[in-house]
């Protein structure tokens, strides 16, 4: 809209300034036109709807239980308390264990960091091999990999359980890291393959002529040139792995349960009085890591999900 206005006004303005007349007066475009009210009104309503659950989580987690029983869930807390947060972190119970979400948090950290690093390392090398060192038949494997991204996990879970059991790592964190590496591979390989293919081929050829080999080119040319795509992949993997529930519950023992699984066990446990404020504090704590990643990374996150949406 605005650029079109500028186009029309441009020459006249130029003539006017040449004649020594400065532009003055109100802006020609009406801010409060009916169209704008409709447009921003609808968007603001939608935004409020999207923000509402976050708001409810925050206010509920800061109320005491008596206030929750009396008031309504949308009202702000009369007395702000952080006790529910402390309890959710350090002493909420799952079954007989009462050491809070902190255990799940540290498990998730211990799962997410190695899974992210290993899956990205493996997938980027795969993508690099596919983009620059394609061998005969490589495309067949790549196609299977991409088609595999659409197969429901439930179909492949049990065979993986068997393989991990045979290797003696079923139920351990190592096993779960391997599973995350496997299921992160299709989308990450695609991401890296496309990125490396888009780099100028002359670079690769020049390095070859200078005598660099497979790994040398990867570590000294490709890797330093591709940092943005590595960041995108990291965002994708950190949020994806942190938010995972199914693999956590299938492939680990209770003492290694990631945060999402533990959160679900805390909130949906049938024993005891329901403490909604503690539950909401726990939910917020679990959602905090991906939310922080999201708000900090901004546009890169959008790029990551546009590439990773296939992961579903």
């Amino acid at each position, binding site marked *: 809209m605005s650029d079109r206005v500028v186009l029309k006004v441009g020459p006249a303005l130029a003539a006017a300034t040449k004649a020594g007349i400065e532009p003055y007066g109100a802006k020609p475009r009406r801010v409060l036109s009916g169209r704008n009210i409709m447009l921003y009104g609808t968007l603001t309503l939608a935004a409020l709807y999207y923000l509402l659950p976050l708001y409810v989580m925050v206010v509920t987690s800061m109320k005491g239980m008596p206030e929750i029983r009396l008031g309504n869930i949308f009202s702000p807390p009369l007395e702000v308390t952080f006790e529910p947060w402390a309890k959710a972190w350090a002493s909420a119970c799952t079954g007989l264990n009462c050491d809070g979400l902190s255990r799940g948090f540290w498990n998730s950290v211990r799962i997410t960091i190695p899974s992210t690093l290993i899956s990205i390392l493996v997938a980027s090398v795969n993508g690099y091999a596919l983009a620059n060192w394609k061998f005969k038949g490589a495309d067949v494997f790549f196609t299977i990999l991409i088609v595999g991204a659409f197969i*429901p996990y*439930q*179909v492949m879970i049990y065979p993986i359980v068997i393989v991990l059991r045979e290797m003696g790592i079923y139920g351990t964190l190592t096993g779960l890291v391997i599973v995350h590496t496997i299921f992160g591979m299709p989308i990450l390989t695609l991401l890296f393959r496309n990125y490396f293919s888009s780099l100028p081929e002359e670079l690769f050829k020049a390095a070859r002529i200078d005598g660099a080999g497979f790994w040398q080119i990867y570590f000294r040319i490709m890797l330093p040139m591709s940092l943005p795509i590595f960041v995108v992949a990291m965002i994708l993997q950190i949020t994806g792995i942190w938010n995972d529930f199914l693999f956590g519950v299938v492939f680990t023992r209770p003492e290694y349960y990631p945060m999402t699984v533990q959160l679900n066990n805390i909130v949906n446990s049938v024993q005891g009085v329901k403490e909604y404020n503690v539950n909401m504090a726990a939910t917020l704590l679990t959602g905090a890591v991906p939310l922080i990643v999201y708000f900090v990374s901004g546009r890169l996150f959008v790029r990551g999900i546009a590439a990773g949406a296939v992961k579903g």
Partner: protein
Amino acid sequence: MKGQVHTGRPSKLLRNLSSKIASIPMVLTAVVIFLGGTVWTVVYSFTNSKLLPRANFVGLDQYERLWDAPRWIMSIQNLAIYGVLTLIFSLVMGFLLAALMDQKIRFENTFRTIFLYPFALSFIVTGLVWQWILNPEFGVQSVVRSLGWETFAFDPLYNSDIVIYGVLIAGLWQGTGLVMCLLLAGLRGIDEDIWKASRVDGIPMWKTYLFIIIPMMRPVFITTLVIIASGIVKVYDLVVAQTSGGPGISSEVPAKYVYDYMFQAQNLGQGFAASTMMLVTVAIIIVPWAYLEFGGRKRV
């Protein structure tokens, strides 16, 4: 031909060796896990495995039992309702939001950040928040009642007839932002001249969208559709967190059926049969799309 292969250089397998070694994880994943695992599950769905997989083939027994089970039928019905409504609502709402965002508005980044943040949250978090908001004692229902409308009833999570719509609300909240983002990218790909031409011809905006822009965005819509659809089939954590399949079995979904039979009821055969049916569902969605996308290109 045969002679040529035999007289080929002996180093053929060793050529490009580093690349082949580096691709071992990919090859293993593709062949052993994706291909092998899938075939293995399908084959063992024809056995009567219970606690451990046993190659004792019983034909279509597991499938007959599956389709006789009320819980499976309920799961399929729920998936159908949830799936169709998710597709319709997320596409319509996602497109409306994208179209509004495309009006060269101010604060575009702020709005996009707000619409997309639920997508960064896990289904567990989503399910638990909406479980709390839809709680009949404290949530929306009680708030509306306290405003004076005493008979107001909205307790989807405790009413087995409408529980799946409660799950739907949460699912839409989580996923519509993504649809908006994908469609907005599609809208941005439309040539500005199209808009100018339709303005010159005096075509109203809604007509331009309906008859020109949307048909032009067909590929974007199809990709988005496939992404939403393959996500729908996998829906599991949301239901586990929000309703645990209840009340009774009224919000069960296929993915949960598979998990429960494989890891809790210790009836592996049923789990394999159910997961094979999930695979068939996905194939029904993906194969026509793949055909249109990759097979049909020659016609153009």
